[in-house]
């Protein structure tokens, strides 16, 4: 703790009042971890500013008092990004939850950082608009957290990630100075290096976001989904490439292998084809003429790739049924095994078949099963490595298996994380993907924004001496982080 910390806490008390500052350990419970509950810590205090003005003041006080700051949205992050700093202030942005303006003519909404992702779409619905990026945590996660993680979802294949749907940010530097990036009025270009792109995905290390200008998308009048069965995983992976290569951009393109399909069927009774080695969910949305034409083309490609069965949703209820197993894949996995590691790697789509074959071979090598359910259209894998946590030997093997998947992804030209971020979870894996010089530039970049290193220290970019362990989302004893949410 810094020498000035007590004065800092005193100043925060005065500024925020008792409802805005939690100092009792008894009140820390909900803040001790994010969605990666294997890591827990207690902060010095939790500050909950009521508006942007208070937020700026909190940051200036912490700057004076040399207190580390950990920004926190809804705490649904899956890499420990919002994990408290034991000597720092957790900065809850939950009260900055107002939609400030919604302009249908320019198709934008100006919202505070604590607004939930889904709340934006709900507010925009009256104008026939929605906010396209849809992480499966969307009923809970905040737009500030989405910006910090560059979050994605099923719609991102067609409509882009957070990066492609945010036009401007307003916020504060670690020292509490106001900053505006991109355009908060909705202009598309800004002069100089693209600092907006740099801030997006920076995991709360560069600045605290208080306000976001998001782009809204017209709601497609129709959506239809194809559910295709394949006799081999390789054929399904080839169909993914063939679909993309044929010039189509599905509104969603997801894959489940047989292990996953069986577990999901047990859980939701969607009527999935249990004989299929892999299932593809392939969706089209848009004007009715577009959907009709696209679905025809998609069907032809799937057939040519050897689909053994193709079902087409006839109405919204049926479409929801097709998706139900995919959306509940994670809780369903609990039926296969009490513990699993959820990896989050990203690879070139063209190497999907090769990667899935490699994972299959690794199952034998490590003596553990692995189920696959993932954003096939983006090449973003989420292998679930099943093991028994009561057996330390199995945990060791599961971790080795996971690390090998990440290394293989990097060797194939992919990335150690496609959407969950690095946080504290994947610090070591950063050393697999980046060279020493690259990691040094990341450190330098951090210093350019936050010379004292007070914003979310110890996250996202590793200290250079640390390059050892593998990363993990360890679901213990079937206990999931945020069990109330649908899973992807």
């Amino acid at each position, binding site marked *: 703790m810094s020498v000035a910390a007590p004065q800092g806490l005193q100043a925060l008390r005065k500024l925020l009042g008792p409802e805005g500052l939690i100092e009792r350990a008894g009140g820390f419970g909900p803040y001790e971890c994010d969605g990666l509950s294997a890591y827990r810590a207690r902060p010095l205090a939790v500050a909950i500013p009521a508006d942007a003005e208070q937020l700026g003041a909190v940051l200036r006080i912490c700057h004076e008092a040399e207190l580390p700051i950990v920004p926190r949205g809804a705490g649904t992050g899956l890499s420990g990004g919002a994990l408290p700093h034991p000597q720092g202030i957790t900065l809850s942005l939950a009260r900055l939850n107002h939609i400030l303006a919604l302009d249908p003519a320019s198709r934008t909404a100006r919202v505070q950082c604590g607004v939930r992702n889904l709340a934006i779409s709900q507010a925009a619905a009256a104008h026939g608009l929605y906010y396209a990026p849809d992480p499966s945590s969307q009923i809970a996660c905040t737009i500030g957290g989405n910006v910090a993680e560059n979050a994605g979802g099923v719609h991102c294949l067609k409509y882009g990630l957070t990066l492609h749907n945010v036009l401007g940010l307003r916020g504060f530097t670690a020292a509490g100075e106001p900053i505006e990036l991109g355009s908060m009025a909705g*202009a598309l270009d800004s002069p100089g290096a693209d600092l907006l792109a740099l801030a997006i995905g920076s995991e709360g290390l560069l600045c605290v976001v208080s306000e976001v200008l998001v782009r809204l998308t017209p709601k497609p009048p129709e959506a239809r989904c194809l559910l295709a069965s394949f006799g081999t995983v390789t054929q399904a992976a080839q169909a993914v490439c063939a679909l993309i290569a044929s010039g189509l951009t599905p509104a969603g393109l997801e894959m489940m292998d047989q292990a996953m399909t069986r577990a999901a069927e047990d859980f939701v009774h969607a009527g999935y084809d249990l004989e299929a080695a892999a299932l593809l969910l392939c969706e089209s949305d848009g004007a009715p003429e577009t959907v009709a034409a696209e679905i025809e083309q998609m069907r032809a490609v799937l057939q040519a790739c050897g689909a053994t069965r193709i079902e087409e949703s006839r109405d919204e209820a049926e479409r929801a049924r097709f998706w139900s197993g995919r959306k509940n894949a994670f809780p369903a996995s609990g039926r296969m095994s009490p513990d699993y590691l959820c990896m989050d790697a990203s690879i070139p789509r063209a190497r999907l078949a090769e990667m899935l074959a490699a994972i299959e071979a690794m199952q034998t090598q490590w003596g553990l099963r692995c189920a696959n359910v993932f954003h096939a259209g983006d090449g973003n894998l989420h292998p679930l490595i099943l093991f028994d946590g009561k057996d330390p030997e199995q945990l060791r093997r599961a971790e080795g298996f996971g690390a090998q998947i990440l290394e293989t992804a990097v060797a194939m030209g992919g990335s150690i994380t496609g959407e969950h971020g*690095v946080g504290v979870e994947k610090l070591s894996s950063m050393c697999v993907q980046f060279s020493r010089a690259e990691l040094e530039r990341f450190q330098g970049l951090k210093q350019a924004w936050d010379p004292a290193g007070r914003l979310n220290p110890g996250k996202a970019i590793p200290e250079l001496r640390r390059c050892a362990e593998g990363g993990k989302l360890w679901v213990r004893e079937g206990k999931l982080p945020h069990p109330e949410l649908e899973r992807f």
Partner: protein
Amino acid sequence: MDSLRSRVRDAAAQGQALELVGHGSKRFYGEAPQGQPWVLSREPALCGLRAHEPAELYVTAGAGTPLRELEAQLGSQGQQLGCEPPRFGGEGTVGGLIATALAGPARPYWGGVRDALLGLTLIDGRGELLKFGGTVMKNVAGFDVARAMCGAMGTLGLITEASFKLMPIPQAQVTLRFDATQDDAIYAANQAALQGLPLSASAWWNGSLLLRLSGLEASVRAAAKRLGGDALPVDLALGFWNGLRHQSDEFFAGAVRAIQAGSGVAIWRLSLPPTTPVLKVPGEQLIEWGGALRWLVTPLAAQAVRELAERAGGHATLYAALDKSAPAFTPAQGAEAQIRARLKSEFDPKGIFNPGRLG
């Protein structure tokens, strides 16, 4: 690559400024170049396609590769870059595309340069070869340094190669023409976007609004029917959008003639909220990007143009002029200016890359 790195290290050791040049087609853009010109398009190590995976929708090319060559290769596979980069005088390189981040008519609909970019490698001011991003669609490991290079005007490092996301050339394309005042055009283009029509470009000049629709045959046909207007013959439409994209059309050609004749006008590029009402200024105007980009050819003083843009919530760039005594770009202020300066010294501690090019 090693010889390029050692040239950078030598320059850094001697404190010698380098002007990074692709084809020099955008030399007029930004502040006056300084330093010893280094023509990267003549460096064999920086030229040529590294990988093109049509099924994967990505391409990797050396930074000195001519856009002409890159786009010919993509076109032969029925693909393109969504950002529709301009080729001034038929020239332009991959590195210059990223450094200037100038995107074409499809910008508001298919995205800008940063949206198409997936990753790049660069040589920083210490002579280190660094790789950021990659070829995959999703990658959130580390800071997004690759996209930060967009618009940096080559001041942060020498880009050596880059990977882009591709899109298929749309099956069908129709351009509709309407008689319209500026007011009506701005309103109509925004309304069309609000209805979710498959727009891919929009422009107003000289009493005409042009809307380009792209996509599947069936959806383009249905949208065209809803919008009405006169469908332009295919060749004429292609000529129009290419003229706009590469700035070889009469609006730009006339403006450049006027500048060179010493008439005292300048070309300004204003990036504004799309619904900004008509700008009342002397001279000629052309509107692109559904209202979000306004080109002014005007004798108005720099300060007046900047204030106009600022009031509307955007900013103005002095694009081309004989008298470039005013700053080309709206200068950054406060914490942002400080961060930009520190970023520059982190990536280029000796200040050798394109000093002053950004102001």
